């Protein structure tokens, strides 16, 4: 793990995320084996595959929740393999979780405000003796939190405790929380699970608006094929821990191996 990599917080650098030969086994089972792909600036990349294909494990390996057995993860020129999760976040790679993970007892606004942690960080003594600078930062992050809530269409719920939100709202809140950390690369693990098709379509539209303005690129794991095919520039398909195919949505939909393994033959069968 390179510690020099931790100082690169400047948003100016547009850097690709490069994954090479990533592998991890759990007690003799290869959960992920030799996975390589890139997420280039300005792209939405979809990561799809059947249940148990290793998509979430991939996420955990990239974001440092697991340490990989083999392979490397680079962010621009920095080697970030096996960095701690909070280091990854501080470098600008922020993820959401498959099982809804939010701060349950807080309100929507407080959740998103907490997400601004890195922006509002201050020296320790400033915690106890905040000066004008701290107050200004607080105002700025509160402003930004309100804007993010607004952007994801949760404005009417802004002071509602997260514990009483509907499933769809929770998923949006999760994305809001990740966005609040101002990531360069946003990694979403099944963000549309539990959404109905209308909600999923809206969600796809929201995702597209994020790109460029707020985040540089998005890596998304999703089972809702309508959504993935619609938003992704490129798609990586995994099966049994290995990479099966990579290409544009059109190429993937035509790929017979992908159809056999995951998409299903449909009418042709």
């Amino acid at each position: 793990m390179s510690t020099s990599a931790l100082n690169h917080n400047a948003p100016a650098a547009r850097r690709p995320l490069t994954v090479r030969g990533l592998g991890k086994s759990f007690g003799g089972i290869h959960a992920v084996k030799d996975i390589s792909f890139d997420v280039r600036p300005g792209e939405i990349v979809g990561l799809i595959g059947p249940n148990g294909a290793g998509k979430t494990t991939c996420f955990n390996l990239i974001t440092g929740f697991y340490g990989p057995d083999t392979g490397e993860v680079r962010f621009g020129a920095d080697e970030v393999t096996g960095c701690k999760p909070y280091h990854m976040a501080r470098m600008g790679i922020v993820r959401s979780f498959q099982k809804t993970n939010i701060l349950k007892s807080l309100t929507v606004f407080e959740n998103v405000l907490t997400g601004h942690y890195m922006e509002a960080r201050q020296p320790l003594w400033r915690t106890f003796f905040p000066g004008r600078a701290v107050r200004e930062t607080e105002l700025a992050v509160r402003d930004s939190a309100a804007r993010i809530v607004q952007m994801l269409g949760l404005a009417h719920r802004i002071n509602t405790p997260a514990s009483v939100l509907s499933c769809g709202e929770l998923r949006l809140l999760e994305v809001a929380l990740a966005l609040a950390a101002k990531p360069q690369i946003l990694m979403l693990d099944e963000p549309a699970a539990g959404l109905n098709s209308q909600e999923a379509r809206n969600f796809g539209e929201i995702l597209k608006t994020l790109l460029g303005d707020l985040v540089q690129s998005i890596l998304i794991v999703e089972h809702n094929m309508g959504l993935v095919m619609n938003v992704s520039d490129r798609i990586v398909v995994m099966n049994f821990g290995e990479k099966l195919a990579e290409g544009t949505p059109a190429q993937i939909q035509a790929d017979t191996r992908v159809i056999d393994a995951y998409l299903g033959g449909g009418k042709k069968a």
Partner: protein
Amino acid sequence: MKFEKHCLWALMALGAMLPFVVQDQYVLHIAIMVLFYAILATSLNLVVGYVGEFSLGHTAFLGTGAYAAALLSTQYGWPIWATIPTAGVLAAIMGFIVGGITLRLQGPFFVIVTLSFAEVLRLVADNWIALTNGPMGIAGIPQPELLKEASNLAAKQFYYAIVWALLALALYLSFRFVHSNAGRAAVAVRENRYVAQSIGIRPLSYSMLALVLGAMLSGMAGGFYAHYISFVGPEVFRFAFMISMIIMVLIGGKGTLVGPLIGALLVTFLEEYLREAKELRLSIFGLAVIAIVLFLPRGLMGFITQRREARSSAATSLQSTPAADGRPA
């Protein structure tokens, strides 16, 4: 946040006025104990309420502070102005050491290891006779020069002023911590460690900050206690202190700043007035804790805040009908 701030100001203002109204030594003694316990409960609440880890070893810091103040003033003749802050610093260092070991654990593991830390310190205090005088404890901790000529009542008022100032400091630091980015980070760690890490928070930093801050505050309370009682024995590490602190935090409402104050007030008064029913007292407390955990899991303050929120949201949805102007919460 506003509501909490106003409550704190009101309670502290009431506290400041008390010695001018009350001239009774006994009542003043109880008031001093209420404020002393309020500091302890506030400091424990930082760990239990905001980091969400249940520390049963908080007496370790209280005892460290008490012994530090006792030793510094009896052996080296330090005045009270120096011993209390030093007690706080030493307890904070102890907090850093204990935290460095225990905060890597969570849930029941954390509870057990912190409990054993306090127990080990009690054994040390009991057996390191050269330093701590063993079970005999350290007696005759000198009173400040100022009080040489003063009456008993004046001495009580003097100690009341000190403990009030300490509580004010404790509340100031806690308030700043809780309503800062650091406090939000601690709450994020309490609610969900994974989310906390995914937004760039290093969990250990903030659980450590809360623990060290709590340790410092209870160390200063311990230093005060040593001077006020003028005796420190191994029983400062006793579990009884811990039980009182826990009950106060739970009854008042963990995760709120006002809660522990209410808890300290209620429990100290109950302990005093139920003194005659010695054995029964503990049973009553036990039942009270069970009832609180079952019916008011967020404590009295949590309950009140919930009521206020429910009422204000009902008020906005009904466009402030008269029903909303009941008595103030």
